[in-house]
């Protein structure tokens, strides 16, 4: 009779759950890294058009966004239903774009300025007139590298 032997109905030792917090943290960090915060609340309604030849926007920090679309319901009383431009958090006019680009440039490192991209997020039912005006303003501001935001077409 060894002194280590205990009673017959020995229970299984409970399995340690100390690694559970690690797992939960893993998931948490995973989402913290991948989910990008939307720092701008959209005031316009945008459904980007479909296209097949797309490239990814690589460096998010170098991208400035211009949103164009119909104002959302709660703003329609003030701003109407015609497509409007949104820069940062406010509705803007075409003439504000140069100022916006200059401000975006100043916020970046000088060495990074040549690699900046302007992403145009435009609703697919917008007429080209307003887009053309924006492009002219971007040319004036020499922000020539642009990216038309679009969704991937599913190939049949």
């Amino acid at each position, binding site marked *: 009779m060894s002194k280590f032997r205990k009673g017959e109905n020995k229970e299984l030792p409970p*399995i340690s*759950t100390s690694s559970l917090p690690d797992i939960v943290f893993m998931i948490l960090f*995973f989402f913290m890294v991948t989910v990008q915060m939307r720092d701008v609340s959209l005031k316009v309604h945008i459904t980007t058009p479909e296209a097949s*030849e797309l490239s990814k926007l690589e460096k998010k920090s170098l991208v400035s966004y211009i949103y164009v679309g119909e104002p959302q319901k709660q703003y329609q009383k003030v701003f109407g239903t015609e497509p409007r431009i949104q820069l940062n958090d406010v509705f803007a006019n075409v003439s504000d774009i140069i100022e916006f680009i200059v401000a975006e440039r100043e916020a970046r490192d000088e060495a990074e300025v040549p690699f900046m991209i302007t992403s145009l997020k435009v609703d697919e039912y917008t007429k*080209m007139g307003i887009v*053309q005006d924006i492009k002219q303003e971007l*040319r004036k501001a020499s922000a020539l590298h*642009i990216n038309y*935001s679009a969704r991937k077409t599913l190939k049949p």
Partner: protein
Amino acid sequence: MARKLPEIPSASLADIAFMILIFFLVTATMDTDMGLERRLPPMPPPDQKDDDTPPIKERNVFVVLVNAQNQLLVEGEWTKIEDLREKAKEFMANPNDDPNLPEKTVKEVPFFGPVPITKGVISLQNHVGTQYGTYIAVQSELVGAINDLRNELAETKFGKPFNKLTEDQKDAIQEIYPSKISEAEPKKVGGK
């Protein structure tokens, strides 16, 4: 005396957590921003006159017009968007040296030796009332046509798709199939 309840085994919790993790990994679209990348032409200097650009021959220009009803006129023919890519490819490649399709100039290109390079330019003009969605579809098809040609060339020459090539090889192919899409200012006349 009440019997001690057996503890609920929590070993499987980790598996459940992993299952959820993998589920999210698979389903979560990283919401990457995708887009059609283009470069705008720089503003012309203010002292530039209109007539100092050399005239481009008619056969070297692939004219795509889009009107306010989102209809396409390609080289004078009413065309559907689905057919645009083939037409643009035929124009840019001009495999049989058709006199109606663009001229070529022979140029020395690394990896390839002397290659006839097309002088073709795609000209896209849209109406102010054109829908943005149509415009992007047209742009996408035109860029796609050039990408297709580049891919085909990369496959035959290097046996790899274009985006897997080295930078030098890419440059060589880009020289053979340049991405020349010019956009005219939209017409403001007519329509709404």
